[in-house]
């Protein structure tokens, strides 16, 4: 098996105030993968990526980037790493072109090598026309694309994106998805992203890890995770308003409003049975959709289960005390 692009073993982070942000996590991301690291706010996603990028100091554990132990030679490992952080972290008063060229310089790229690269990346990301403008004049979406261009200047083999599409409108988000897919597919860049848009993870990523309370609670392929989904909730928009909730044998039906029903469908049940039952009762359906994205439904279930287990453990510990 090829060396993983990223390998994490026993990664622990305890902040100065005693907060255990990471509790010994293990994680492997294979070369060429498109990987999602998911978790609720404060779960440890950004801390994990911060340690990988050297922005956060670990308390214990080992990290290897393309087989290079970061404790032994972080500088060499960093050549393989491109980072797009969650918050804008460039000098807002600098010109767009200066920001990307300076980043290339920090990696030891000469200006003659960096300039064509900058032209290509800024062009691909729709920023070449803005190159002489100050970064603070860019829109939020442009600033995010600038950070992607900057991170790719030195041709990293592993690109880490911490919520890259936060606050970006749908059209732009989809064009960024397409760009990331392209560099993953055509250039073989391994991509790790965190996101709160589960649709994004489902659409882009092949593998996923879910982190909660500083622990990896699941690490599998997106496809495998979705097959475990026990229940999906579908919303049915009706042609005519209803006065009462219709009964459908074997299904849990709720009325969202008088023209919309929510039906929970367990694994093995068929949607045809719902349509048939509604048809028999003279109810016309005009459209149907998932209440939540499938991965989102799975994610919420797992996180809630994890939180409930923690609450039970805390209650038991309190009772013992």
């Amino acid at each position: 098996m090829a060396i993983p692009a990223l390998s994490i073993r026993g990664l622990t982070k305890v902040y100065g105030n005693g907060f255990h942000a990471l509790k010994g996590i293990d994680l492997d991301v294979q070369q060429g993968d498109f990987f999602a690291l998911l978790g609720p706010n404060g779960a440890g996603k950004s801390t994990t990526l911060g340690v990988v990028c050297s922005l956060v100091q670990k308390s214990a554990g080992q990290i290897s980037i393309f087989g290079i132990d970061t404790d032994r030679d972080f500088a060499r490992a960093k050549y393989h790493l491109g980072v797009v952080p969650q918050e804008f972290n460039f000098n807002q008063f600098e010109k767009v072109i200066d920001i990307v060229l300076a980043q290339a310089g920090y990696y030891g790229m000469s200006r003659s090598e960096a300039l064509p690269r900058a032209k290509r990346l800024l062009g691909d990301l729709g920023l070449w026309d803005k190159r002489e403008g100050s970064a603070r004049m860019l829109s939020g979406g442009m600033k995010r694309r600038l950070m992607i261009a900057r991170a790719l200047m030195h041709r990293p083999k592993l690109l880490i994106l911490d919520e890259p599409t936060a606050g970006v409108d749908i059209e732009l988000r989809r064009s960024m998805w397409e760009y990331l897919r392209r560099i993953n597919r055509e250039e073989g860049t391994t991509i790790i992203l965190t996101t709160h848009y589960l649709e994004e993870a489902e659409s882009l990523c092949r593998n996923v890890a879910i982190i909660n309370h500083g622990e990896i609670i699941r690490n599998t392929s997106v496809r495998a995770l979705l097959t475990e989904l026990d229940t999906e909730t579908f919303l049915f928009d009706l042609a005519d308003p209803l006065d009462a909730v219709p009964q459908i044998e074997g299904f849990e039906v709720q009325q969202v409003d008088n023209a919309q029903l929510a039906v929970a469908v367990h694994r093995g049940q068929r949607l045809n049975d719902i349509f048939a039952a509604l048809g028999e009762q003279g109810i016309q359906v005009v459209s149907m959709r998932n209440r939540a994205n499938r991965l989102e439904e799975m994610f919420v279930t797992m996180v809630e289960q994890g939180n409930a287990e923690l609450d039970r453990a805390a209650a038991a510990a309190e009772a013992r005390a």
Partner: protein
Amino acid sequence: MNPMQIAIALWTLVHKEIKRFTRIWPQTLLPPSITMTMYFIIFGNLIGSRIGDMDGFSYMDFIVPGLIMMAVITNSYSNVASSFFSNKFQRSIEEMMVSPMPNWVILAGFVLGGMARGLGVGLIVTIVSLFFTRISMAHPFLTIFVVVLTSALFSIGGFINALLADKFDDISIVPTFILTPLTYLGGVFYSISMLPALWQGVSMLNPILYMVNVFRYGFLGVSDIPVGWALSAIVAFIIVLFGIALWMLDHGKGIRS
């Protein structure tokens, strides 16, 4: 990184720093020129003519080296303190931290940037002083050597200040409450031989006194203190402060959680 890559990274950082302070020249280069012109007119010309000679030189000639040194010290320090803290504040320091650039290159880049501004302003003040007096240098190489060392020393000081700073107020405390009083009491405007013995002894504890005096020695050939001793002290300060700054960077003090 190989030596060529290190050279490119260092030049990138230095170039960026120079570009930064030249872009905002009305804030960085113009004010010290105007302030020093005022000093030359008021202290050198108007009041100086009534003071008479100082250590055998006209008062104007006496204060020129001190004023140049004062400009170099404050500008070297404040350039690095404000630039590095601004990078911390805007988190653009992360651009450097995620790169393979060694910490000593980051430190050297900011220090060289601070020196570029400090020495640049020093040059401007020197040019301004030519409108008021004729400058001759008794020891030109020593003059240049000591001003370069002093600029390096205070640039490193500004870097440490910025590392420790949590807010913008923190980078103005040292210049306002420590640097300025020490500079004014460092023999810029007077010879410490004018002071009572007790205060001469107290003045000897002020490191800026040594720099001003050695610099003045380079211009006029007179100094209140032994030149060799002063140079050794400046070099020792540079080595110690550079070591402290590098240790802080290596351990992520003020920049890594």
